């Protein structure tokens, strides 16, 4: 039955392809409406990728997006909408930075401690939403959005010099203090810059994600719950426990999203640490269809749009084009996936019918002969 596999692959690719084409066309319309060349910015973006420093930037950003998008995808696989990845990620990286700066341990242990703190904080923050959902029936969408706002305020308060923050000499920025060198994750030095070492951990986690979901009992239970909660319950899955577990794992993964940058470059948390990663990741997980390979390509695309937008800004084009395109991709993705899904289901039903009819005809002929 390889035929159905191939079909599924083609249909699987048709969704994103359709979405991307539509998004590009619509972006060109936006450019035309602003009296700009509809194609030139794309050419400039592609041109930039030849520079090695841009390549490094794109790859580093891909790793960050990849982790955050995996966090979102774990929720999605279970029909949980974890909007709070952004808050979980920021709170986790901040507290991990505080702990990392406060202690000094031999190399690997120091890094492990920072990573562990980040995962624990992310899981804790997401776990609040999980507990609220399982005990009080609060929608995780609402609670995670609120937790995002609380995280923002909490971070702003904690980073005050009176609390956990430090004000570096001659600067207006607030940081959490520098992590000692034993807590730096070594990177891969190239011509254009250094690729964060944690980026490779991110990609490895993609493999773990694939294995756990596709090859373990736990993963099967999680997917079954996402596909049909009632059927999963009847088959012996404890849905409440599953919701909580999925939230905890998703939060822990979200906590890791800040690690590439913290361990590889800044070595401190500051007010200029990127925000919004968790929201972009929702679009990436959607585009990548919660599939580890799909998410990888989607992260790469979004990172490419982000990092090459700077370049088109220099040529007089609005660099917000990248944001517009990302937004359009997300909208197009939602529409095109639903279209492709319905088409695929219908087509399969028809094909099954046809094959059965053909089988029946053959049987008849055999019987007649």
């Amino acid at each position, binding site marked *: *039955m390889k035929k*159905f*596999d191939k079909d*599924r692959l083609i249909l699987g690719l048709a969704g994103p392809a359709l979405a991307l084409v539509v998004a590009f066309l619509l972006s060109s319309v936006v450019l035309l409406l602003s009296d700009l060349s509809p194609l030139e910015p794309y050419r400039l973006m592609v041109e930039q990728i030849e520079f090695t420093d841009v390549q490094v930037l794109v790859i580093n950003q891909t790793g960050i997006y990849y982790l955050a998008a995996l966090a979102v995808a774990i929720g999605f696989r279970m029909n949980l909408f974890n909007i709070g990845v952004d808050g979980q990620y920021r709170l986790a990286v901040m507290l991990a930075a505080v702990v990392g700066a406060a202690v000094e341990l031999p190399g690997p242990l120091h890094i492990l401690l920072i990573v562990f703190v980040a995962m624990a904080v992310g899981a804790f923050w997401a776990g609040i939403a999980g507990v609220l959902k399982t005990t009080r029936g609060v929608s995780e969408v609402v609670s995670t959005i609120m937790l995002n706002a609380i995280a923002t305020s909490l971070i702003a308060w904690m980073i005050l010099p009176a609390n956990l923050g430090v004000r570096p000499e001659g600067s207006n920025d607030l940081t959490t203090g520098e992590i000692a060198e034993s807590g730096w994750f070594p990177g891969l030095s190239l011509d254009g810059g250094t690729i964060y070492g944690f980026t490779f951990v991110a990609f490895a986690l993609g493999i773990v994600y694939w294995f756990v979901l*596709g*090859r*373990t*009992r*736990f*993963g*099967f*239970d999680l*997917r*079954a719950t996402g*596909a*049909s909660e*009632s*059927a*999963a*319950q*009847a*088959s*012996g*899955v*404890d849905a409440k426990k599953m919701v909580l577990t999925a939230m905890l794992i998703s939060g822990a993964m979200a906590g890791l999203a800040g690690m590439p940058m913290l361990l590889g470059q800044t070595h401190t948390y500051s007010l200029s640490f990127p925000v919004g990663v968790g929201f972009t990741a929702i679009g990436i997980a959607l585009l990548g269809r919660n599939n580890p390979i799909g998410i990888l390509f989607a992260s790469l695309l979004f990172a490419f749009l982000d990092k090459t937008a700077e370049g088109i800004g220099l040529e007089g084009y609005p660099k917000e084009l990248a944001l517009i395109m990302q937004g359009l991709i997300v909208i197009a993705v939602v529409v095109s996936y639903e279209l492709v899904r319905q088409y695929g*289901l219908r087509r*399969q*039903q*028809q*094909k*099954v*019918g046809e*094959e*059965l*009819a053909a*089988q*029946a005809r053959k049987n*008849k002929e055999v019987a007649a002969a």
Partner: protein
Amino acid sequence: MHALVGENGAGKSTLMKILYGMQKPDEGTITVDGEQVTFSSPADAIARGIGMVHQHFMLADNLTVLENVVLGGEKLYGIGAKARKKIQEISDAYGLGVRPDVLVEQLGVADRQRVEILKVLYRGARTLILDEPTAVLVPQEVDALFANLRELKAEGLTVIFISHKLGEVLSVADEITVIRRGTTVGTADPQNTTTKQLAELMVGSELPSPETRESTVTDVPMLKVDDLRLTVTDPDGVVREVLAGIGFTIHKGEVMGIAGVEGNGQTELIEALIGLRDPDGGAVTLDGADISHAPTRKRREGGIGYIPEDRHRHGLLLESTLWENRILGHVTESPNSRKGLLDLKAARQDTERIVREYDVRTPGIEVTAASLSGGNQQKLIVGREMSHTPKLLIAAHPTRGVDVGAQAQIWDQIRAARREGLAVLLISADLDELIGLSDTLRVMYRGRLVADADPATITPEELGSAMTGAASGHLEHDENGESR
């Protein structure tokens, strides 16, 4: 009134979908009122006066009957007084007895079906398609439905209906078309055809009967339920007792049937036994082990097989492949997994075996469960549950929506497993099936087991009246046709 009969996957539903514009034919023509037509969507079909009542009702529970009827048809008579008047008019004209202001969630199955019919008539349908309308009804309700349908016929409407129950088909239809594997194999005149002839036309073999001949009941108890009690709290805080004082024992090799009008606690009983609801009192013992409060997975592993009432909600992952569905419910058991890891190869192989042995008609195991016909989905579920040699099988409507051929097969499988010492709890709306398959019979009414009967002597009519609460205690067959 035209009846369409045929095996599962024979193409009945596909034909209906084409008539209703949900699917396009490759060849051939459809003629309505002497005029050749092509439908590209259900809207076209509705415009031509064709309406469909689906097997699975498509109503919004939290809206009133009136709101459900006008939903999507707001342009016809508005949503206010005019619509209400029209609904009353239709309801009175055909004796449907619909109350426009009741919430749909408060209605029983038969009432919901009448709302569906009204919905279709409201849109001006002159030709009604009913997909297995009697599958969910008890005998008394079936009679009422047929009275409604005759009313419609008398008004000059055309009714096409699909059914597996040949007796009914013969009693109401004016003409019968039999299809098999996608082609018409014959038409029959109900006046001079017997159910047996019709069945033979359908499957090309003998009419199966659910009768169980030799008794295999042993005196080893398998499932013991003692004074089981379950309450639910309504949204407005009222505590209702849905199960009370339920007690019975099913022995190895015994099939116990429970008869009852739907909504009298059967669903809750099953859910309490499988662990989806936690009982408020009483004890459940399986093969000597107390499982009153054990989690569902424990019970499944402990040897409870489960053929759920609603296979779409509880038995299958519709958009997953057949082999993934084969794993569902038995993910911790061999051959599906070993030490926490799935064994995809073994699971796939075993799915192939189930497809072969249980005659699931599918081109392969990589297709989604949704693309199989209802009967074939059911065969897959039965195959899956039987593959783990259960000690106790909870079978809720095991042959609902399943054709005669597959029905016989499922009955055979239950009987064969029973000979090996399987205990079965059978719940079914098909009284012939209940009487034919069971070794002991109980009647459930308002959450209690109110009567018992001997399946060897009882008739469906006698059982039917006990189901409405008219009789209790031990039901004796009375030659005069009365039961006490």
